[in-house]
């Protein structure tokens, strides 16, 4: 069974590559990244191996290794998602014992650039202990155990959350609660570290202190154990290994339970959700434009993909502030509002094949574009304004609020406009409605990454006038410049949005069936 799943994963990978040359390009780029990461890690390992300071070796390995394990466990939830090609839900119909499914899925998870890099890096790190040859195999063993912990933890968390979140009623609430929790933890961590990192603090002492704590946790035990063994404290090393084994067992049980539940209750088949009346459709004008706006607003409210795309964005500058960066956090403001507006670049792709309803109707492209932009604006403009005011006041720049508002709303309008054009040109790979929100789609992302890059550059270029004015206004503390930045920002945002919506609309009039076909072939 294990062998089957691994082979299945390899076959899927190969067939994916056969599907389009872009997939190969994506794979090569990913592999290059991996090689570069390995080279970086290798240099670090060699430097550590040459160092004679045992406590330094230990501290760096424990902290670095813990970061790797934590990254595996937590990152899929925030950023990348887990590769859903081997979604447990697809094995529901086969009589596979969960235990073997676990082993197979776990191993298969390591197939791919991140997995290979991690395993090679971990095995390579054991070289650090070359002075005590007995310790090298110990380091390899605990390292592999740590990889197992990392993989199982990533699967356990995402499986649990995915099945929790698949109940649509709870999904919004819990996704949001999770983000808030995460933000709280992040901010707490930020305060803690910045509080401890005042001037004059011994960085190495701090590192060792952190390593001492981490060494007894599941994420760090694997790296502290060989250090103990090297120092001759074999008893402690065994104890740490036991911590590792016990946590691996606990995580396995957790994953097993989560998967068993996911397999029994594959899709969201809880109580059917509904809403009374026509909702937004009754409140907005009965025109095609009003209908598109109402539909998008309904989706902003009911579809977790929209919430997740936006919810994490305001956390960044606020976290920056919490980490003690002070006014520097303001630099991130235009970036954040730009990214907020950019979220509709995936709007057409998010419709999935349901987009046919727009293609089939005699709907003008400009109505399609404008409806989406209005709906996004109704959600994002208040959010951006709030973000600007909170950050401005927190960083002591309350006087510069006009300039900051000009930049925030200006970049928001510009990016909404550019995204309106972009999503009429390029179809992106996104989770389809109802899919695992933590899943990622395999490969084929180079075109969409490139288009994102070009789009973001366009946003940056087009917003540069208001950016420049705002910087001037803040630096010179000039109210006149501040207010003119506000006027210029609003005018610029409105202009780019208008042009973008019209241009995107014309593109859509011509290309709507092509876009639909691209979506169909992608799903």
């Amino acid at each position, binding site marked *: 069974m294990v062998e089957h799943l691994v082979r299945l994963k390899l076959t899927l990978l190969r067939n994916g590559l056969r599907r389009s040359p872009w997939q190969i390009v994506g794979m090569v780029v990913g592999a290059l990244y991996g090689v570069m990461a390995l080279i970086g890690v290798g240099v670090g390992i060699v430097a550590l191996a040459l160092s004679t300071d045992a406590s330094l070796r230990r501290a760096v390995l424990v902290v670095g290794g813990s970061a790797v394990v934590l990254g595996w466990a937590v990152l899929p939830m925030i950023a990348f998602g887990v590769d859903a090609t081997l979604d447990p839900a697809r094995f529901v119909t086969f009589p596979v014992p969960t235990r073997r499914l676990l082993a197979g899925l776990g191993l298969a998870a390591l197939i791919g650039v991140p997995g290979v890099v991690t395993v090679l890096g971990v095995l390579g790190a054991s070289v650090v202990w070359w002075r005590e040859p007995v310790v090298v195999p110990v380091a390899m063993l605990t390292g592999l155990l740590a990889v197992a912990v990392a993989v199982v933890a990533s699967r356990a968390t995402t499986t649990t959350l995915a099945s929790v979140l698949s109940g649509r009623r709870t999904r919004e609430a819990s996704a949001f609660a999770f983000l808030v929790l995460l933000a709280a933890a992040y901010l707490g961590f930020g305060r803690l570290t910045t509080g401890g990192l005042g001037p004059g603090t011994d960085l190495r002492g701090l590192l060792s202190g952190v390593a001492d704590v981490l060494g007894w946790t599941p994420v760090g035990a694997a790296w502290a154990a060989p250090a103990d063994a090297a120092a001759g404290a074999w008893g402690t090393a065994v104890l740490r290994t036991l911590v590792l084994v016990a946590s691996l067992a606990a995580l396995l049980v957790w994953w097993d339970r989560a998967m068993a539940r996911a397999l029994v209750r594959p899709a969201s088949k809880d109580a059917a959700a509904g809403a009374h009346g026509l909702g937004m459709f009754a409140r907005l004008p009965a*025109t095609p434009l009003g209908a598109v706006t109402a539909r998008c607003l*309904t989706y902003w409210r009911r579809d977790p993909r929209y919430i997740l795309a936006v919810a994490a964005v305001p956390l960044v500058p606020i976290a920056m502030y919490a980490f003690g960066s002070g006014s520097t956090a303001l630099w991130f403001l235009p970036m954040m509002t730009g990214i907020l507006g950019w979220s509709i670049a995936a709007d057409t792709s998010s419709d999935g094949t349901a987009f046919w309803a727009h293609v089939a109707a005699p709907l003008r492209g400009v109505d399609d574009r404008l409806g989406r932009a209005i709906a996004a604006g109704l959600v994002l403009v208040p959010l951006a304004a709030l973000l600007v005011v909170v950050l401005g006041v927190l960083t002591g720049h309350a006087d510069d609020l006009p300039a900051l508002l000009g930049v925030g709303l200006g970049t928001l309008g510009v990016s909404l406009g550019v995204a309106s054009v972009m999503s009429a040109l390029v179809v992106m790979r996104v989770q389809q409605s109802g899919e695992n929100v933590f899943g990622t789609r395999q490969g084929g992302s180079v075109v969409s990454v490139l288009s994102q890059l070009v789009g973001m550059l366009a946003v940056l270029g087009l917003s540069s006038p208001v950016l420049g004015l705002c910087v001037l206004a803040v630096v010179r503390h000039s109210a006149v410049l501040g207010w003119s930045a506000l006027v210029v920002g609003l005018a610029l945002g409105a202009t780019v949005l208008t042009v973008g919506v019209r241009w995107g609309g014309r593109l859509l009039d011509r290309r709507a069936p092509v876009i639909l076909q691209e979506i169909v072939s992608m799903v």
Partner: protein
Amino acid sequence: MRPKADVRGPGGFYCVGVNVPEPPPPARQEPYGQAPAPARQTHAPQPDVPEALRLRGLWKSFGPKTAVAGVDLDVPRGSFYGLVGPNGAGKTTTLSISTGLLVPDAGQVLVHGRDLWAAPQQVKGMLGILPDGLRLFDRLTGAQLITYAGLLQGLDRETVVSRTEDLLRAVDLVADRDTLVVDYSAGMSKKIALACALVHAPSLLVLDEPFEAVDPISAANIRDLLGSYVASGGTVIVSSHVMDLVQRMCSHVAVIAAGRVLAAGTVEDVRAGASLEDRFVELVGGRVAGEGLAWLSTSSD
């Protein structure tokens, strides 16, 4: 003002006892609005009454695979046209091209004599579409979805509201009107999609596998509804795998295989005395003779 196809008719009562949108009166046969280019009319055999749908030389390839290889088809006004063919024959591709969802590599689609791909915005309003295998905006409730379809077609609010009620009754989804479509069963989704296709009273209905997963009672209701729609001058094209159904329900039929039309005409002509199913197998071929899978018997374990 957005261009609107004048396809709204007054409501009317039908044999299923509900008020469904009525197709336009048959008087709508002469070209109106922008007249179609005369050149396109010259090769029509009956230039005075253009067919509801006329396909000429449709080609479509996906990479190396040719899905539609030169399809010509005439769907007379007021016909109930069945499109049958084995899996992968190009039925869905043909219907997608005919409804503006898929750009053909070559060929022409005339809806009531007007070139669809030359002026899609003007022609699309005449079509009611039920595609197969495409999603719906399933985070909307059933009532919202029909409303959305109606508003996208440019109907006003009163019309949409009253037709939504009628359609929900016609497809027997009144009780589920406030349920999200994502929680509908496959059959319910088909029915709500059909309601969306009907809301603007199109003069040509194109339905891809409309009876798949639909329970027998709903299917009978839908057949009645489509029957009365055809009786009042509308045209219906359905694709189906169920020969028996097509034989009973349709006035015309076309057999498609490997992207080509093998036979087309009235059901009587095409089946030529035999049953449609036998005729279909004869035309398409591919029956596997033999004793089947010897090991697939419950007694052999």
